[in-house]
């Protein structure tokens, strides 16, 4: 599903974010990428969604070499990879439903398709009763769940979660992780980027540990080792 071959990314002033990364994530896997702040986790996410170009190496997503992806192809890639972030990135003037709907509208989804898919994903994330509330009227966990719903509308094969529990208490964090596990059960590859030790240890799934831009550990059923 996702392959990184000797991927290197350096920022100005010789700051090495990724150094010779080799990685293979199979379809349907649930992988946690862990590491402390500034170790290159977010850069890895950015290279995967075409936001950052790499200096060396090759990145393949679903058989598609995205190493030198063009600006016109980036939207196509992003419809195949659902992404959620620590700060939810929801529009506060739109309801949760409208936020999810917006993702389909801006990609040319027909009203009929929107009407059938949006309620469905709202149901998957358990927010059908709160769909018409605004982000500031719901808990952090619910806001993150609606962000997950938005990420799911294009039925992506990969769901990339960059610190999704960073702003949540343990109860809400558990809810979000449970939801990610359920989505993974449907066959979606989930990549969880986090530095939440408790979450990672509880998952008992594959854990890749990054330090100073290099992979220092890749365990099939791993723990947070830092």
């Amino acid at each position, binding site marked *: 599903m996702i392959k990184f071959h000797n991927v290197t990314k350096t920022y100005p002033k010789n700051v090495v974010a990724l150094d010779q990364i080799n990685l293979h994530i199979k379809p349907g896997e649930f992988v946690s990428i862990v590491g402390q702040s500034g170790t290159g986790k977010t850069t890895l996410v950015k290279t995967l969604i075409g936001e950052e170009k790499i200096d060396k190496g090759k990145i393949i997503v679903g058989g598609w070499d995205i190493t030198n992806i063009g600006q016109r192809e980036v*939207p196509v890639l992003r419809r195949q990879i659902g992404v959620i972030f620590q700060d939810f990135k929801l529009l506060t003037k739109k309801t949760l439903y409208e936020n999810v709907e917006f993702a389909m509208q801006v990609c040319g989804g027909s009203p009929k398709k929107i009407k059938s898919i949006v309620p469905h994903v709202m149901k998957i994330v358990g927010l059908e009763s709160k769909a018409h509330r605004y982000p500031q009227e719901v808990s952090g966990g619910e806001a993150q769940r609606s962000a997950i719903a938005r990420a799911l509308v294009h039925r992506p094969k990969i769901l990339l979660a960059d610190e999704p529990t960073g702003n949540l208490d343990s109860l809400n964090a558990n809810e979000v992780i449970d939801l990610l596990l359920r989505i993974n059960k449907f066959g979606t590859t989930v990549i969880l980027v986090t530095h939440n030790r408790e979450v990672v240890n509880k998952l008992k799934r594959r854990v890749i540990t990054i330090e100073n831009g290099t992979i220092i550990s890749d365990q099939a059923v791993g723990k947070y080792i830092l």
Partner: protein
Amino acid sequence: MFLSIVRVIKFSLQDIFRNIWLSLVTIIILILALFSVNTLIVVKVIGGNAINAIKEKIDINLFIKSTALDEEIVALESQIKNIDEVKEITYISKEQALENFRSKHEENPEILEALKELGRNPLTPSLVIKPKNLDNFDNLINKLNMIDNDIIESKNFANYKLMLEKINAITEKVSEAGIVLSFIFILITVLVIYNTVRVAIYTHRREIMIMRLVGASKWFVQMPYLLSSVVYTFLGIIAIMGIYYAFLSILQPYLEVFFVGYDIDILNYFYDNIFKIFGLQFLIASLINIIASFLAVRKYSNV
């Protein structure tokens, strides 16, 4: 595709209304630019009309002594006709001159009464000469001055050329000032449009970021802002049409008084050329504004 176009229009209108004050300022600046451009057109049209009207009226009068014989007059007429610079020559008899004088002053009974009291025709016959080309006006005057014939009583060589040159110079000067003013306003408009789009993008930066994140195409992200600039131009053109109609309606009576006897109808000129004048302005202004918006969008939409 149709759906995307509808949504682009919706987002564009949302953008205009969410920043309504900024949109109004942009449109007002645009109106000022268009006003200066249209004033330039008015000056050109009035100047051109005045020059043409004066050209039509330019002629040279050679007054002939009343005692001159017919054959002497015919000989002089043919001598003048042979001058290259002469377009047309007409003989006005004493009687014809009197008739012309009466019709010219028919609304002035005092003059007509004075003429009656005189008891005789005081006017002299004349030869009216129309020049071929005003550029050769001086040559013609020189050649006419060289004619030494006793039957010529007097010559009226009003310096029309000088008058035309003055009108031309004034028109040119006003046009030059208008062009400078128009350029300044166009430059201001470009900067204001650029800034409006920049602010609109800043206002919508979160939406743009999310659009890009969920896979909206670059076209879809950028198009609403380009469309907004066309909407601003369209509203500016509609407003200037209304404003200019009112302006010309006020100006027209003054022009009629100032250019009495000349057929200058600026309102009608704009009415007859409405699509040409405002259509062309819309196309050019849209193009300029789209370029300004495109530069702003390209620079600032990568949030």
